[in-house]
């Protein structure tokens, strides 16, 4: 799927391309009189085909809009009752029916940011190695193994996190960051180290989004024309200068597309994060402190939520997550467009 998406990303959206005209191909018009019946059948066939395909294409966005409307309607009682404070309040008290989503929004954004900050350089490094340096016999196996990370079920990441990552974080990484490196003076690395934390969630997310970013980046880098590299090398550039100056700028918009794909995954990931983040609705500057994300809040509470306002508040959280994802994707699209336009100007 990603392989097919990448080239079109570079060439512009597939929808921008001229669609197949519903008229007959030029060769067929000449035979119209001779083969009237057959042609007429073909005209009807093409029309029906176009209609079917258009309907097919519209079905997906319609579904998306319907979902958004449904969630909004279900979340409206809570949004109406709490108004803007739903986004700013830290209260989440199902017993007394007082809800605010601020900690979950904060947690979603922070954990995704940590994930991208770690995964992006790693993934691009992997992609550059595989496309530029790795010998042919190594390229396929390593690429396969990296892609395989995406096939591991989320709950398995969560279990691995509980039994391997958390003990390492608690006994080694967190004390090392806080005490040995004296980063404890910063608010980000202070406080007791229990294990389940924003940092743990960000780390597990970084592993989970890595294959998406690296797979897309690799395909994009492999699609960079040879002439691009040869030209740079011919000008006397070193290998490093070639990659930095000629290959990466060419592939930039595609790589950003890959990062966005990873970000989308990080924002929505539920199971592994729930198992590692500590599920505490609070906003703390420390990455060692437990937090909460919107997705895990919904997953945790939906099945047993019985009060109408509680259910509505969870739906409202879902709607906020929907909107945030939409905004992030819109910004990303704009970024890709900006980058491809400016690099296009540079090329020209």
């Amino acid at each position, binding site marked *: 799927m990603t392989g097919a998406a990448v080239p079109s990303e570079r060439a512009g959206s597939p929808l921008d391309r001229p669609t197949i005209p519903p008229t007959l191909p030029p060769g067929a018009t000449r035979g119209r009189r001779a083969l009237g019946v057959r042609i007429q059948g073909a005209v009807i066939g093409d029309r*029906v085909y176009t209609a*079917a395909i258009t309907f097919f294409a519209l079905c997906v966005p319609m579904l998306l809009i319907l979902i958004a409307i*449904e969630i909004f309607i279900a979340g409206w009682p809570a949004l109406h009752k709490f108004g803007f404070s739903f986004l700013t309040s830290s209260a989440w008290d199902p017993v007394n029916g007082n809800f605010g989503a601020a900690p979950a929004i904060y947690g979603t954004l922070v954990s995704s940011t940590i994930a991208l900050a770690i995964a992006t350089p790693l993934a691009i490094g992997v992609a550059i190695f595989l496309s530029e340096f790795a010998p042919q016999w190594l390229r396929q196996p390593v690429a396969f193994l990296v892609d395989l990370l995406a096939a591991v079920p989320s709950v398995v990441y969560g279990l691995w996190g509980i039994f391997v990552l*958390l003990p390492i974080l608690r006994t080694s990484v967190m004390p090392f960051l806080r005490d040995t490196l004296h980063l404890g003076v910063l608010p980000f690395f202070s406080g007791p180290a229990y294990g389940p934390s924003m940092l743990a969630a960000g780390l597990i997310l970084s592993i989970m989004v890595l294959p998406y970013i690296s797979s897309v980046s690799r395909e994009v880098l492999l699609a960079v024309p040879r002439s691009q590299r040869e030209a740079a090398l011919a000008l006397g550039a070193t290998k490093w200068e070639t990659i930095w100056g000629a290959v990466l700028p060419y592939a930039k918009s595609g790589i950003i597309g890959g990062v966005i794909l990873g970000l989308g995954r990080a924002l929505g990931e539920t199971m592994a994060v729930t198992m590692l983040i500590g599920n*505490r609705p609070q906003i703390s500057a420390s990455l060692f402190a437990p937090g909460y994300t919107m997705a895990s809040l919904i997953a945790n509470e*939906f099945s047993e939520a019985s009060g109408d306002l509680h259910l509505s508040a969870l739906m409202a959280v879902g709607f906020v997550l929907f909107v945030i994802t939409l905004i992030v994707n819109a910004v990303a699209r704009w970024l890709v467009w900006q980058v491809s336009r400016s690099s296009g100007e540079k090329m020209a």
Partner: protein
Amino acid sequence: MQRRHPSGLASIIGSALAVIFVLAACGGAGDQKTAAGAPSAGSSSGGADLTGAGATFPYPIYSKWFADYAAKTGVKINYQSIGSGGGIRQLTEGTVDFGASDAPMTDAELAKTKGPVLHVPTVLGAVVLTYNVPGVTQPLRLTGDVIADLFLGKIAKWNDPRIKALNPGVSLPATDVLIVHRSDGSGTTYIFSDYLAAVSPTWSAAPGKGKELQWPVGMGGKGNEGVAGQVKQTPGAIGYVELAYAKQNNLPYATVKNASGAFVVPTIASVTAAGAGAAASLPPNTDFRVSIVNAPGADAYPISSFTYLLINKTPADAAKGKKILDFVKWALSDGEQSAASLDYAPLPAAIVTRLSARLDSLSAGPTS
């Protein structure tokens, strides 16, 4: 490829198929609303005579009962363990023949159902406190107010004088207390908070009781296994899990002081004793929606609770209603025998007697 001339007939058939497929796909997507909270509700009921949904806690014993009952009578019962809240929602919407819940339905929930609902206690469960305190080998002794203050964050160190006073001779470390609670909504949390609200006025006022709470301190683990995993790994941690889960996984758990002043080890016998202690004070026309936390009785374990089957007193389908009643009667007589083998506490005899009388009056006529 784009320029290839398609054969007329083939393209018509192809597009017709595409339209049908899309219509089918879109139509299917619109029907999912009733299944909120139920991943596979209704879809797997084919071939079953009765369908039910609800609590996950009694699922192991219920599935054993359903299998035994099907072997004996041929009546097949399909049960989806989607959680108490989902069970109540589905019963209210009428998508299942019976529901199941760890916490009794509230008056507000009962007001929304199509007809009167009878709560049938089936087995008892208990919540135990599991902990990881370095150096402590014998079971800790705790009281209700100490547990409440631990979970309120008022007792922050394990060598607090109040814990020391309850556990003479135990060397308690100066470690910080870390509270681990359930992050997912659960009947276990309901029972535990019901108990804390009963023994501590402060708790009753501030977090209160419910399946999800605003916890004053600590962090959340998903499911019994999430709580147990975090407690096991973190020195100084204390959390609460179901008795059956703690027994099956050999977790350490505390003995708790009951209403009679005795420190009671949570066992199947002491949980049943709690049910018996509470049964004595039930009014004759009880709807069985009773809390049995902190029950009287010298042997009663204080953090115990019934789990319920929820059945319509006036079912739309009389034949199905009779089948459910027959099953419940069988469960109360034969089914209870196998409860202990799966670490569930069977109902005390006093409750079974009163329930049977109530069920007989139901099957005699829909007037009750």
